[in-house]
């Protein structure tokens, strides 16, 4: 793996986490991104956003090496094997899980080094830089351990080779050399607003073993019989890493400002939960048999939105608090010079009507899976349906969060129809108060409006908006959600014609009020496969899926976008929406195949 100006290609990262925060580790053994104590907290390592001042924790052979890596089977524990002329060394990385009966670190990254063959000289360097590299970080030696301190944050590095490091220019560095069969452990124990737990080797190893046992057990609960089972399992494991366990919310991605085009300005903070992902999330969790997680996510959904109901915001913070203000970090250079680096997300202030369809579809999935909705929830859902019936005629910013004037985006209208349609079904099923007559009337009126204003005869496609007469890949979601119409079928063909290049699908070709280019949007490719399956084009769906599965990185992760010319990953990483789209496409294909077999039998 070669770094460019100190930056590893996004494709070369793997993710480890504990359900509260997560770390990106490059193939060369460098931990380049870690926020503490939570996924949306300021970073202590941000080398992905500034190779010089972001901070990192490097652990690598001191001689030339090749690295291979994998996740332990059914696990979010990463194993990297370095092959050198002197021999082989294995590094196991994990964020350990809390032991409820013992005092354990608030957060802990464990890195276990094992000599496999020969004697390989290793070197390591810990450069903690709290507060996105902006906070003053104090490094001290106490009780034979290294402490890094800034405000209420503390990091303690243990436990054996690490204790002998030296301090140079704000970095603790050291070397170690192990004989075959020997091992050493680095434990990075983090605390925020509480006393730090000083790690001991035996404790750290026990927590690592506990963590190694938990993940396969969790993955073993997955219920899926279909093609691409390995990719589906990996995607489920990624989703679990992106789930903020204290609240049940799921972050769109664990990073901020990884660019949608190298050197460009489309750099956003994704460490929030987008309501748009709600239906995809519920569908994936329920279909794969993760009912506890589905239950927790639905409770989070209903609680988080309560302040604004029946109006829904676009995105929410993981802990439910309200501050999502967007700010720039001019001190950071950005990934390979891609400025600006942003924290917070201004999309919160946008109007995006499609979220109502996503939330109502999620409620519909959950309600039918569980068989009941309590009275309060039922009334709240009914009020949301009334709100949609009243507001579907409004202009909005659309699914792509266009930072330009609001328009009548057809995808938003289609999702409003989904919201009203699902509300009618929930009402008739007795799960919410039944006002299906007025909801159905609004849905019919909406559909007639889309027929009149959303279709372009020349393009033979639904369009982005009446004033934007071009094809939009987000319209594929209408097919995914069962907005059945010959015009939706034709739109699938138009997306193929205008936006697809091999396995890659662009969101749209026209402008969006922002300067600069972007890559192909991976979720759109999976939506296309899903839409193929939904509309009976099973062979096309399977062929596209085969190609898409091959686009993952070596450990099965996907970013938001990809550069079709080079295959380079772009955008925040790994991306929940892409992995959700993968799961839902695979599940759809499996379901269609199963139905076909039933009919044949």
């Amino acid at each position, binding site marked *: 793996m070669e770094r460019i100006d100190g930056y590893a290609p996004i494709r070369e990262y793997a993710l480890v986490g504990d359900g*509260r925060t997560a770390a990106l580790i490059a193939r060369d053994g460098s931990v380049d991104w870690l926020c503490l104590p939570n996924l949306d907290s300021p970073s202590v390592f941000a080398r992905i956003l500034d190779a010089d001042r972001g901070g990192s924790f490097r652990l690598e052979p001191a001689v030339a090496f090749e690295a291979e890596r994998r996740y332990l089977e059914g696990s979010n524990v990463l194993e990297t094997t370095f092959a050198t002329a002197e021999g082989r060394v294995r590094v196991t990385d994990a964020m350990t899980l*809390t032991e409820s009966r013992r005092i354990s670190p608030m957060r802990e990254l464990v890195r276990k080094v094992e000599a496999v063959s020969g004697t390989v000289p290793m070197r390591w360097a810990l450069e903690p830089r709290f507060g996105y590299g902006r906070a003053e970080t104090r490094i001290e030696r106490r009780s034979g351990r290294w402490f890094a301190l800034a405000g209420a944050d503390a990091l303690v590095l243990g436990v054996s080779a690490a204790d002998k490091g030296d301090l140079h220019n704000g970095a603790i560095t050291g070397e170690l050399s192990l004989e075959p069969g020997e091992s050493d452990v680095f434990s990075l124990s983090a605390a925020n607003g509480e006393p730090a737990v000083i790690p001991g080797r035996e404790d750290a190893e026990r927590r690592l073993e506990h963590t190694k046992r938990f993940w396969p057990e969790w993955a073993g609960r997955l219920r899926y019989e279909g093609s691409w089972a390995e990719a589906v399992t990996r995607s489920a494991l990624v989703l679990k890493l992106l789930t903020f*366990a204290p609240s049940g919310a799921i972050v769109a991605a664990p990073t901020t400002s990884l660019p949608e085009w190298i050197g460009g300005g489309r750099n956003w903070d994704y460490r929030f939960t987008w309501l748009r992902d709600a239906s995809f999330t519920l569908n994936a969790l329920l279909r794969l048999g993760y009912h506890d997680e589905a*239950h*927790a996510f639905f*409770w989070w959904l209903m609680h988080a939105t309560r*302040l604004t109901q029946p109006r829904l915001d676009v995105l929410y913070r993981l802990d439910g*608090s*309200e501050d999502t203000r967007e700010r720039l970090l001019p001190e950071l250079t950005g990934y390979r010079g891609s400025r600006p680096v942003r924290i917070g997300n201004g999309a919160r202030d946008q109007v995006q009507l499609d979220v109502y369809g996503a939330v109502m579809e999620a409620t519909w999935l959950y309600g039918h899976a569980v068989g009941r909705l309590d009275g309060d929830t039922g009334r709240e859902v009914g009020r949301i349906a009334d709100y949609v019936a009243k507001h579907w005629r409004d202009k909005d910013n659309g699914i792509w969060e266009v930072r330009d004037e609001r328009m009548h985006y057809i995808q938003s209208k289609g999702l409003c129809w989904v919201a009203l349609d699902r509300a009618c079904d929930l009402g008739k099923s007795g799960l919410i108060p039944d006002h299906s007559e007025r909801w159905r009337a609004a849905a019919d009126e909406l559909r007639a409006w889309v027929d009149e204003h959303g279709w372009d005869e020349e393009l033979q496609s639904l369009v982005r908006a009446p004033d934007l007469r071009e094809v939009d890949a987000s319209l594929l979601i209408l097919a995914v959600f069962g907005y059945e119409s010959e015009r939706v079928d034709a739109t699938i063909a138009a997306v193929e014609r205008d936006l697809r290049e091999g396995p890659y699908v662009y969101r749209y070709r026209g402008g969006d009020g922002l300067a600069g280019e972007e890559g192909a949007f991976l979720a759109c490719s999976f939506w296309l496969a899903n839409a193929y399956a939904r509309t009976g084009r099973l062979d096309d769906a399977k062929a596209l899926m085969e190609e898409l599965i091959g686009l993952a990185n070596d450990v099965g992760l996907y970013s938001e976008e990809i550069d079709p010319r080079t295959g380079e990953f772009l955008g925040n990483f790994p991306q929940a929406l892409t992995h959700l789209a993968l799961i839902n496409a695979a599940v759809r294909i499996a379901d269609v195949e199963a139905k076909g077999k039933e009919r044949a039998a």
Partner: protein
Amino acid sequence: MTLWGALVGGVVGTIVLTSGLRVAQELGVTRMDIPLLLGTIFTDRRDRASVIGYVIHFFNGLLFALAYYGVFRAVGHAGWLFGAALGLVHAALAGGLLLTVLLPAVHPRMGTPWTDAEETPLLEAPGFLLANYGRRTVIWTLFGHIVFGAIVGGFAAQLS
């Protein structure tokens, strides 16, 4: 001052406090739902939880009214102003300790900052100054408890 006065004040005060927070919920000021938080200790059925929670909160109100009465007796004075001052202390106890520290620690369905991937809690914790339930939650909680205290103090002083 009488015990019965304090208890009647506790009943009225709890009704006012609970109703006030409910109004705040409906106005979109807070997501704080005390009956739900308390009831979900015993069940994950939201509708049942709310009923159980209302009963628990009602009895909590009576217990706190008894505690207020104990202070009134010890000091030898009761009144709405003194009750309101005790309500301020009560709010600090409820918002600073009971809801933010003790409840997440004992609640089987509530997340804590230490909850990890092994668990799937159903409720988010209130967080520092109850901010996770809306940044104005702390103001309503404070105001509600001051009113509760004033009512208990007023009733204890008047019903003699």
